[in-house]
């Protein structure tokens, strides 16, 4: 079976710093894949290159066998993306954002209206009908971003930190939506710092460290009977500090 996403030898250098270093990753179709890693490990850079937002120095990204960089039009029709903290059309309301992006994707008027209404209702953004995106809170921006990613019913969702700043109730909603999406045959790749979340939600996990993937597989394989957090810290952590020093803090 074709993989939902296959990254081969992805490399990106910024100046003399190598952010992503020949990274390989295969996301099986129908899987819910978690990417975990330290700050600056290269998760966002990898995902940006995977979906076509950042040109890699070397390597390829295939979405269901379609090369993102040589046949972007076909690949992008299969993809739904939630990038980390990028801009949105600030002077539109949430409904308008969805309407115009739907029309821009070539959906017809009634489909767009129907889907926009449903997405806004499910994500509980329909109460903020008159609010411009520029007035949204960080969590609301995440939610409208997720709605944008889902709008055209993609086959693969690529989500950068989808749960960051989202309140616990909305997080439950988002989890249910993503579960339904994978149950219906969709594939999800998601990056996160929260180990517990990845452990509960994902069936596959990859550890990203210094721009490479030293460990990947099903969650059970990677954990090998231990907790994901312990495995992760052992692999990338070095020493965990914080107990010593800072003596002045509580004086």
């Amino acid at each position, binding site marked *: 079976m074709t993989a939902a996403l296959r990254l081969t030898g992805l490399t990106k250098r910024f100046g003399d710093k190598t952010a992503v270093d020949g990274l390989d990753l295969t996301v099986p179709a129908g899987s819910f894949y978690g990417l975990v890693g330290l700050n600056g490990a290269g998760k966002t850079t990898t995902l940006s290159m995977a979906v076509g937002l950042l040109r890699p120095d070397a390597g390829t990204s295939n979405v269901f066998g379609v090369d993102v960089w040589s046949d972007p039009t076909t690949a992008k029709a299969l993809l739904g*993306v939630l990038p980390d903290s*990028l801009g949105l059309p600030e002077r539109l309301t949430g409904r308008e954002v969805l309407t115009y*992006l739907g029309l821009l994707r070539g959906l017809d008027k009634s489909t767009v209206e129907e889907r926009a209404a449903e997405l806004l209702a499910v994500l509980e953004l329909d109460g903020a009908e008159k609010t411009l995106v520029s007035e949204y809170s960080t969590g609301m921006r995440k939610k409208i971003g997720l709605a944008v990613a889902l709008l055209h019913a993609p086959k693969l969702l690529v989500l950068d930190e989808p749960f960051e700043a989202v309140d616990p109730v909305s997080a439950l909603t988002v989890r249910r939506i993503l579960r339904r999406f994978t149950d219906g045959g969709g594939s999800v790749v998601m990056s996160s710092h929260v180990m517990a979340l990845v452990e509960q939600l994902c069936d596959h996990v990859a550890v990203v460290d210094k721009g490479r993937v030293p460990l990947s597989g099903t969650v059970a394989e990677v954990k090998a009977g231990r907790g994901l957090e312990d495995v992760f810290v052992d692999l990338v952590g070095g020493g965990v500090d914080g107990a010593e020093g800072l003596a002045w803090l509580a004086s």
Partner: protein
Amino acid sequence: MAGVLIAMRVAVLRHSLRGARAAWTSTGALVGLGLAVATIVSGRTDGTLLASLWGTWAIGWAVAPLVSGGGEVLKPENFAMLPMSPRRLASGLLASSFVGFGPAVTLVAFASLLPYAVHKGPVALVVAVPALLLELVFVVLLARFVNAVAGMLLRTRVGAFIVALVWAGSMALIAQGWALVAALTQRWGDEGPAYLRDVVGWLPSGWPIRAVDAAARGDWGVALGVLAALAVLPVLMLLGWSRLLQRRLTEKPARPSERRASSSRLGRIAYTGRVGAVAAKELRSWSRDLLRTNHLWFAVIYAVGFCLLPVLVGWWGMAPYTGLAMLLMGSGLAANIYGLDGTALWLTLLTPGAARADVRGRQLAWVTVMAPMAIGLSVAFTVLSGDSYAWPIVVSLLPAVLGGAAGLIALVSTHMLVPMTDPHKRGSNPLGISDNDGSSTGLAYLMLGGVPVTALPAGAVAAAGVLTDRPWLAWLGLPTGLVTGAFFAWLGGRLAHRRLDAHGPELLEAMRTGVAPATRKVTGKDGVERLMAAKGLDDLPKRLRVIVGVCWSVCWLPIFPQGLVALGFVLFGQERHSWFLATYVGGWGVPLACGMVVFGLAVLGTGIYLPGWYRKREAVDAV
């Protein structure tokens, strides 16, 4: 406190002033220095002239926030949690504002008070020194104060209009101030300009000159009084500014109201396809984004002021072209339209085939916003002017300029994108669209020069018809304008969406990181860099590269404007011509202009010689 803020600002400037940007900034500083020297030279003896020149410098500082995107290197928001009063914060920020080329150049310009004081009587120097320093404090604070007031006003629609009125009005006045002087002369003879002189002299920018005059007369009471006023004014402004700072840091701006009324019409546009969807989105931005509202009013008010001020002396010759002037100004303010929207570009990049629709939709929206006003202004003022021969020229130029501008906006905003602060990260100052040095202002000038070029064919045909008195030829300008307008709009848009398709990710990266895209091919930073790569110079050590870059970008200034052009002016007997130094030094004009050319050639030669010298030295070292 102030010391720490000054150190912070120095650190920020040092990080941002690197490589080619340093070359740009030093070019700007050199131009400023030229203007400062011109101020000194021309105001030696004439107090009235000096006062009006100082007034121009003050206006320059007052509009600086507009040009430099707020001009805030340090954002007050970053210090909101420090336990200190707004007054202390304002004083610290003010102190840090003195770091930079602007204040240094202005200090040189204000040094013009010293030769003037010597001319009046050396004893006046006692007053001149404190007066010019206080004036420097006043103008630097004026920029901060205006920025704060404008930032507060730009939260409402009316405020956006007021800010545009003040800025565009004063810039039009600088450009066409002669008309005002001439009108006053016409009305009251020599007394007319004398009134104006009094007004200019009694503005705060003229106070130091008043003080020096008074001291030279021995009128010490007046001199000290004026000095005291000069000292009190900044204190009052500082208090006002700290009030505004506190409001900015503690109040969330009211939501811009939405206009429900227009949605049905916009809805119809939106459902006419992908281009329609983008156009509808853009039209909403035009009506809801107060910064764009402000830009729109700026274009209108500047054009009206610029073309109608001469009417004061009964000259209607420019009035028919008000609409065209508005289009030019409007195109300049829209030249960085992709940069202003920031990283929201990712949505276009991830939507299959959306690049073309995005570019065409933006062009369509710009034309939809501008065309009715341009046509209205053109028709109204051409009728009022009674210039019947202007009709074919105006009517021919309208479609040519509309189309040419729409094409150039698309082309320039995608090929020469200047990264701005993302809209959702701009903080509470609506003007704070960028922390760079106003490179987008360069794009505006490019449009002011480029758009007329696209309209040349139509203008030439119409003008030829008018001059030779052949109406059929004059009216042939209209189809010419329609064809060239359509052609340039099509071509610019096509180049733009191809650029988005080919280099979209690079543009996005540029906006994410705030560094101009590495694939840019035109002028400025990358022009120099590309030239260096082409000449195999990119392996030079950094310091040498900066020097070579500065030489290459700066040498043209003495060679052309200050050298050859100034020489032309001198030879044709033009005295005291704007900023051409050689026209101010009497009999020394020709040698000075020639010296400038030699100097420029020497700078260019240094830029060419240094790399070769370095290579040779390296080769010797290698052996």
